[in-house]
């Protein structure tokens, strides 16, 4: 028996319904993934998830300084490194919808330096991956290098926020999917 149950419709608290509706609007979807339904009994967690996604993943705001492709590549590579199958699957679907084929994406996961993106977008992906996986090993000289590559402090703030969101999301998704399944 799985540790988390999926709630029945009538057991979803109104506060959770509000955040599930926000998530549908944000992602342009009609069905909420199980990895989010697993948190309906704690609407404050859904609020944190949706607020972080809306502001840091930036899919609807139109305020991002980087392309949607670059953000999806970064999300895929962090999910791959963190072995989050849920995030990895959703990023792959997003990239396939953008016209990338599976074989090319496998190649990019195996060798993330060969990205089909302009240099500035490649820098975004490269640094997001570092921030997510090795934040403590980033040094002041790395920021000077970012500046030399034309990245502004606001660009880098967005990269830090994006990396933080990827880490945050992999924890919620990985564990919800594990707790929703039996061995």
């Amino acid at each position, binding site marked *: 028996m799985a540790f988390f149950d999926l709630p029945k419709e009538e057991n979803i*608290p109104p506060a959770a319904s509000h955040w599930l509706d926000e998530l549908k609007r944000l992602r342009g979807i009609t069905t909420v993934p199980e990895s989010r339904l697993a948190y309906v009994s704690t609407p404050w967690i859904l609020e944190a998830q949706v607020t972080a996604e809306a502001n840091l993943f930036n899919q609807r705001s139109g305020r991002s300084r980087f392309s949607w492709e670059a953000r999806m590549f970064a999300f895929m590579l962090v999910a791959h490194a963190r072995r989050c199958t849920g995030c990895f699957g959703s990023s792959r679907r997003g990239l396939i919808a953008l016209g990338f084929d599976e074989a090319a994406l496998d190649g990019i996961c195996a060798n993330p330096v060969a990205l089909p993106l302009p240099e500035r977008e490649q820098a975004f992906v490269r640094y997001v991956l570092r921030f997510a996986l090795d934040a403590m090993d980033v040094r002041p000289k790395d920021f000077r290098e970012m500046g030399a590559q034309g990245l502004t402090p606001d660009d880098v703030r967005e990269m830090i926020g994006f990396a933080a969101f990827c880490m945050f999301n992999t924890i919620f998704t990985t564990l919800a999917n594990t707790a929703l399944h039996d061995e």
Partner: protein
Amino acid sequence: MAFFDIPRDEDIAPGLDELKRVAVSTPCCGDWVTHAPSPQIVKPRVTVEASLFRPSDPSVFSWEARVIAFMVVAHARRCDGCFGASRGRLTKLGFAEPALDGLCANPSVLPLAEREHVFVTYALRIATNPSELQPRDFASSKPRASLRPTYRRPDAPPTLS
């Protein structure tokens, strides 16, 4: 010259006052202020801290357990800022520095009730190695009925242990 500047007051995004109210980590200093010009960073950080750390709301786990979990995760992730903030909080709660050093060296020896001990142990595993957890790890905690999620009526107050 540093890459980030500390912003002037007029460049600080709305929402930072809310942060002062909810912040657990050193409020409005250092890393928080460097992100202050960006409302897209400030808003989720404030919401996440208020919603997930829940310093001002009842939690099913004690404040001590949450701050100890924060400290051991910060120690494992080598985040000096979070580590210092958690140590400051724990010192105010009456923990001595040598005792905290001992906890960081060996988190299995926690001065907490069994259920709180389980919270810290799993928070550390979840934060550092979520993909290593298997369904059996959740199953093994089933006898601890209080760790199993429950669906509360929306108007019911949070359950305190």
